[in-house]
């Protein structure tokens, strides 16, 4: 049943489509891989013969999620995640489009690698996969890559993954050149010299634990520089994961000035804070580090107000061997593609953000920024659709996760709500029974 592509009618659902600002009870009809209709009372009578009719009473139907930042280890690190396992994890988490980080081995810095990934994904992945290409050759921060040819090959944006380009001249030229191709630059904003040996948020907690801290300024120094350069070049710039209040002030000022800038935050930084590190839990070691509770709360407010545009999973599978180490020596990174939405639902249940805002930041906005189809439920759009049960309570068992690695900060967390069906281009690729 799972791979059959016959028409699907989702009935009696609460249909949440941020692209039309709509939230209503009705039916959604999918045929030939596209959304045919989404309205009240399509009913079983008005659908093609052979349509699979699924009762979605008390469930939410929403656009499939577009995750702008996920690491997949193909090519070069299959032991961490393959396109097959990564896409299964994505499907289970309601993510219908994975945007891959370019720091594979070799890096995605030439058109042939983009081509390889797209072919490999076509053959092995069950959701859409779109590669980001490297911003600089070999991610070295020295020479920009072939934005034109890479874009033509299928790269959706340009980024040096978890590295910042420290040379401002290189950054200026890249932004200037990117503008000609209308290419989106996605940049990690962290000054490596200010990060130094830092492993967690700078402050009282780091002091007590005896760990070296990373100051907020490591982020704001680069962000401030980048936004001035983006204004100079007139280029589209996206901060890949902001974490602190100070950055929000910088971002707001640039947006008010009309700079074409947008920003993401990771699911970790809006649902967790530095206290979650507890007694040196390495699964909560991420880069940039989890911040203060005030920062977390401010990020959520920024999402609600639209100052922050998108939420990313920052999915970063790490082997047990790289995590079962003293905190300072452990690799940073957490998996998240499978838990992004349910973790986000915590904020909805706590009434920190509306459901439609959360969904928009995970689907519509990233699709818009990257120029991708999907991210909405309008008739005629690609049928990337998810069905959610908002209320079912469960406890996360890492062994049930599809990802190759189990480094989740939500290990044994009590969660409420889950994805019950994921449809990619009209085909059901995941079903929770």
């Amino acid at each position, binding site marked *: 049943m799972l791979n059959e592509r016959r028409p699907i009618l989702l009935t009696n659902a609460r249909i949440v489509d941020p692209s039309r600002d709509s939230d209503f009870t009705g039916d959604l009809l999918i045929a030939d891989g596209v959304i045919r209709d989404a309205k009240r009372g399509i009913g079983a009578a008005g659908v093609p013969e052979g349509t699979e009719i699924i009762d979605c009473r008390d469930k939410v139907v929403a656009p499939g999620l577009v995750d702008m930042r996920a690491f997949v280890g193909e090519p070069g690190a299959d032991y961490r995640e393959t396109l097959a396992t990564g896409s299964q994890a994505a499907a289970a988490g309601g993510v219908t489009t994975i945007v891959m980080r370019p720091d594979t081995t070799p890096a995605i810095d030439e058109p042939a690698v983009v081509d390889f990934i797209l072919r490999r994904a076509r053959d092995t992945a069950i959701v859409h996969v779109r590669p980001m290409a490297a911003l600089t050759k070999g991610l070295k921060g020295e*020479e*920009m890559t072939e934005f*034109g*040819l890479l874009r033509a090959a299928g790269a959706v944006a340009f980024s040096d993954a978890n590295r910042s380009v420290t040379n401002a*001249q290189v950054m200026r030229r890249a932004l*200037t*050149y990117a503008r*000609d191709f209308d290419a989106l630059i996605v940049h990690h904003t962290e000054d490596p010299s200010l990060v130094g040996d830092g492993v967690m948020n700078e402050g009282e907690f780091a002091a007590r634990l005896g760990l070296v801290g990373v100051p907020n300024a490591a982020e704001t120094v680069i962000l401030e520089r980048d936004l001035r350069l983006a204004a100079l*070049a007139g280029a589209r710039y996206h901060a890949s994961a902001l974490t602190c209040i100070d950055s929000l002030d910088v971002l707001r000022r640039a947006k008010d000035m009309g700079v074409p800038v947008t920003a993401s935050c990771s699911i970790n930084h809006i649902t967790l804070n530095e206290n979650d590190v507890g007694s040196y839990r390495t699964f909560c070691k991420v880069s940039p580090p989890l911040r203060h509770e005030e920062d977390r709360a401010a990020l959520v407010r920024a999402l609600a107000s639209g100052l922050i545009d998108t939420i990313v999973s920052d999915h970063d599978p790490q082997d047990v061997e790289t995590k079962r180490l003293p905190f300072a020596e452990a690799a940073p990174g957490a998996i998240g593609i499978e838990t992004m939405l349910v973790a986000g639902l915590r904020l909805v249940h706590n009434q920190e953000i509306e459901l439609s805002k959360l969904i928009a930041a995970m689907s519509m906005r990233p699709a818009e920024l990257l120029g991708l189809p999907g991210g909405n439920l309008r008739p005629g759009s690609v049928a990337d659709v998810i069905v959610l049960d908002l209320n079912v309570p469960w406890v996360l068992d890492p062994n049930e996760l599809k990802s190759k690695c189990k480094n989740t900060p939500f290990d044994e967390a009590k969660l409420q709500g889950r994805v019950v069906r994921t449809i990619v281009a009209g085909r059901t690729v995941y079903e929770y029974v």
Partner: protein
Amino acid sequence: MDIASQPPFVLSQRHLLGIEGLSRDDINGLLDRAEHFVDYNRQINKKQSTLRGRTQINLFFEVSTRTQSSFELAGKRLGADVMNMSVGSSSMRKGETLIDTAITLNAMHPDILVVRHHASGAVELLARKVDCSVINAGDGSHEHPTQALLDALTIRRNKGDIERLTVTICGDILHSRVARSNIILLNCLGARVRVVAPSTLLPPGIERMGVEVFRDMREGLRDADIVMMLRLQRERMSGSFVPSSSEYFHYFGLDEKKLSYAKPDALVMHPGPMNRGVEIESGVADGAQSLIREQVEMGVAVRMAALEALAQNLPNA
């Protein structure tokens, strides 16, 4: 043909440091005179005596083949004694400053100095320290006046008139002295000038120099009469301005397809030396619409006109 039967053109200034500062009459006067030298250079006896007894020193701080040999031939055909000094053999290598070199050479009483230097403004600086006439044979990314004149002569001979032509200059505008001199000259003679390049190779503010700016060859070449290609000047680049020559060629290299966006009778120019397969495809460079070889011929004639015009102002002339 007797060149002496035509009155020589007299330039109203001592030096030729740039197109900036020349009047429309100056430019047309030099071009008219150069026309005569074109015919003259096609004769068997190319020797003249206008500059007999005069000393011309070609002082090249930057390597050059065509410009230096073109100036050398021009001087010799006019009867001057020509000496070439290039950076490899000069005392600049031993630490002498530009001004000391100028003073030293000045003491040898040359009549005309032809100077190329890698720094913008260096030729003008040197000109202030010498008693002779100075011709700028290219200073940094600033000006290369005789190149613009020879380009204008080439266009004029093929299109009749420069006024109202659409001339598109493509490529590395940022580092190009040829582009700057041509922009000024073509504007002065009433052409519509466009530039096409990636933003990284356009100097901010270029639109104020009287050009329309494009970043796409299809748009920039539409209805162009003249397509002027520039060399990607890697030696002047610190860091990367474009990601690779293959991407550069794909978007900005002149091939048959991109040339077809211009007028059917559009003509192709390049100041040389060419990077075939980087900014221009071989088929186009050697094709029927190419004026590249003719540009070299015009170079000698234009430089003869310039040397002669300046010599009219020399003492005891």
